[in-house]
């Protein structure tokens, strides 16, 4: 997926369970049966992926809408 990528404005987050700072990892985004690789910050230990509001209401929303209109 080209429309969604990592967010440079990630706040200073650590994983509450693992107490580790987040790292950009390639994760899998999926919607309506389509899957895309995307770089997002997540906990390197437990894999909890962080999605910022800017991403959710911006590029991610645009891709969702584009897929819904396919």
């Amino acid at each position, binding site marked *: 997926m080209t429309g*969604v990528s990592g967010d440079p404005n990630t*706040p*200073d*987050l*650590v*994983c*509450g*369970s693992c107490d580790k700072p*987040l790292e950009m*990892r*390639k*994760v*899998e*985004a*999926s*919607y*309506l049966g389509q899957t895309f*690789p*995307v770089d*997002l910050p*997540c906990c390197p230990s*437990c*894999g*909890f*992926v*962080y*999605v910022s*509001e800017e991403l*959710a*209401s911006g590029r*991610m*929303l645009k*891709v*969702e*809408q*584009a897929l*819904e*209109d*396919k």
Partner: protein
Amino acid sequence: MDGDQVKAWEALCIEEQPPACAAACPLRVDARGMAEKMAAGDFNGAMALYSRVVPFPAIIAHICEHPCEAVCRRAEAGGAVRIGALERALVEEAYPTIRRSAQRARKPKTIAIVGAGLAGLTAAFDLVMKGHAVTVFETEARPLERLRLDIDSSVLPPSAIDADLGALTSLGVDIRCRQRVTGGGSQALGDLIAGHDAVLLATGPGPAVQFSETLRLTAAGRIDLDPLTLATSLPTVFGSSLHSGGDETYSAILSVRDGRRAAVSLDRFLQGASLTASRADDTATGTCLYVNTARHAAVPPVEPADPVAGYCHAEAMSEAARCFPCHCLECVKACAYLTHYKTYPKRAVREIYNNDSIIMGNRKSNRMIDSCALCGLCQELCPNDLAMGDVCLDARQSMVDHGHMPASHHDFALRDMAFSRSDDVAFVRHQPGHDHSAVLFFPGCQLPASAPRQVEAVYRHLCDHLPGGVGFMLDCCGAPAHWSGRKALHQDALDHIRAIWEDHGRPRLITACSTCLKQIGEFMPDLPVASLWTELAAIGLPDHVAARSVAGPLAIHDPCTSRHAHDVQAAVRSIATLLGADVRELTGAEKTTCCGYGGLVSFANPEVGNAFVDRRIEESDDDYLAYCAMCRDNFARRGKRALHLIDLIFPDADDPAARPDPGFSGRRDNRLRLRRRLLRDLWGESMSDPVPPVALVIADAVRADIERKLLLVDDIAEVIAEAQRTGRVFKDRTSGHLTTSGRVGTITTWVEYEPTDAGFVVHRAYGHRMQVEVKP
């Protein structure tokens, strides 16, 4: 969607019909378009429109009879636009900007035209523009001699004739004067026919008899012409219709039309095409374009300061600005939806059908289709009763049937509907102490969600005044399913209501909601159903309710679903008046507008939904009186003081018009509470109050943001509770805030929060539908 039905819908919209001026013009000059450009100062653009259609702009501007002015609709508001004078001002200023170049035909055909009058030269112009080689033979010493002799030079300056003739010859037309074509001899018609691919006789009716050996004549001695195609008895020879002798009155513009009609036939003949197929009727003059001239104030025509010279530039601009211009657009002007999409029904219907027909690719009009409020106002205003709501609803049903309906558009509304129908909310009981119901009160889902106390009060009143037992049914009428195109879900909701109705002895239904009333009346016409308001008007108001002074007048807003419910409209007004309200009309009930909830537009397109309600709010400064809960709540949400009729009867506060919008979370909460309270207080059933999973603290601004994003406070509480249980959170080392997420239905809900002694402070929440996870 059914193609024939779509065509029928398209045909109802007359916006693309020509304005009266163009319809009356034998050449179909777009005077409306020209006036629009001239009013904007774009004379060159106007001249381009004019000269695209008119072969001799300078001549025609001066001598056209201008049938357009006789039919101009501005005549009903100050006087017809002086189109002729505008054309002359246009020629005066912009004639040099005309740019014309003839097509280049690969194999130019040779055409002889006999007669250099307006008809012959128009044909010459049209045919040379098509790339043919045209030679004109004229008996007189100069072309257009009749114009020079018959028309005073103060009306038609010779310079105008010279300019247009110069332009014609520069295109390559060969005009040979003093060349009389006769039936025989040195310049015989037969030789022209033999030497050219086609011949046009544009000589007028006089000399026809001399061609009797070559062409078939009529009994009156005219050349026998097909009235539509102007073909003669010889396939390569055509005539101008002046030969037919049908109209001996000279008309410059009709001569031009005759020449054009002949040129079309010659060109078709030379291309081997049918002379008759798909041929527009160039004699038709009427139009069915509807124009509401009463909308425009009377403005008299501009008088030129110098009547001899005509309009100067500024005068021409002012006169051109008197053109309305003629459009119908009655629905568009009144509709926030059509205005938003800058479209009109004919174009929108085609776009919707195309969207429905796409096999591969993006369906770009999905949101447009889901943005119609289905309110019916367009049908009310349309001269032909076209209802965009019918079109959009049909398209929505097709989208659902084919799996193309975007999930996000109606998901929230359908979840809300499912909640209203769930066992958490829905219930039905006979009146306490009764085992039979003569009447079943069906308050709907939104009034109990907005004004639960008043619903309880009115139910008690009904129980006190109606005999035979008044049952209570808290449920949904299925309108959201219908509006979203979900036929099966809609039918399921209807079937459920019917089953309950049967099971409870077929009682008479009383609905508090106009939408419920319309739904049941339309889809289950055999069920006896009445409005709460007509019922209250009949049985009277509670004894303790007395007429009291309502502060200030109330502007009444009828819900779109009551547009034709005249008995309901009258009952509401009589109740409000009985209670001392000074009721003022807005647009009147039949032309009422949507509050933004209709057709679920506020879910699919919040911008359009807000535009609907904001437009309505701007109509009056008075407090609004509504009798649909969603109308009232939408007004309140957008900052308009508004009360529901039930607030007048059972005021729950000193200033009911200031009652805030409960919001989606508040509505759910109100339904749950109403159910518990009624079952406990009226039916004596044991109901325990639910324990919220966590205590939340939410500032008003955050709550409004959550509402806007269609997230529910209960869901946010569940997500936080789950995070507190599992420890699955992110911690912001700077602020100390925690952030977590949880999947609620098809939404991943994120919450940024902070544990405090007062509870969990919610700082923000947001959601997305896409799922993200680390690849295994």
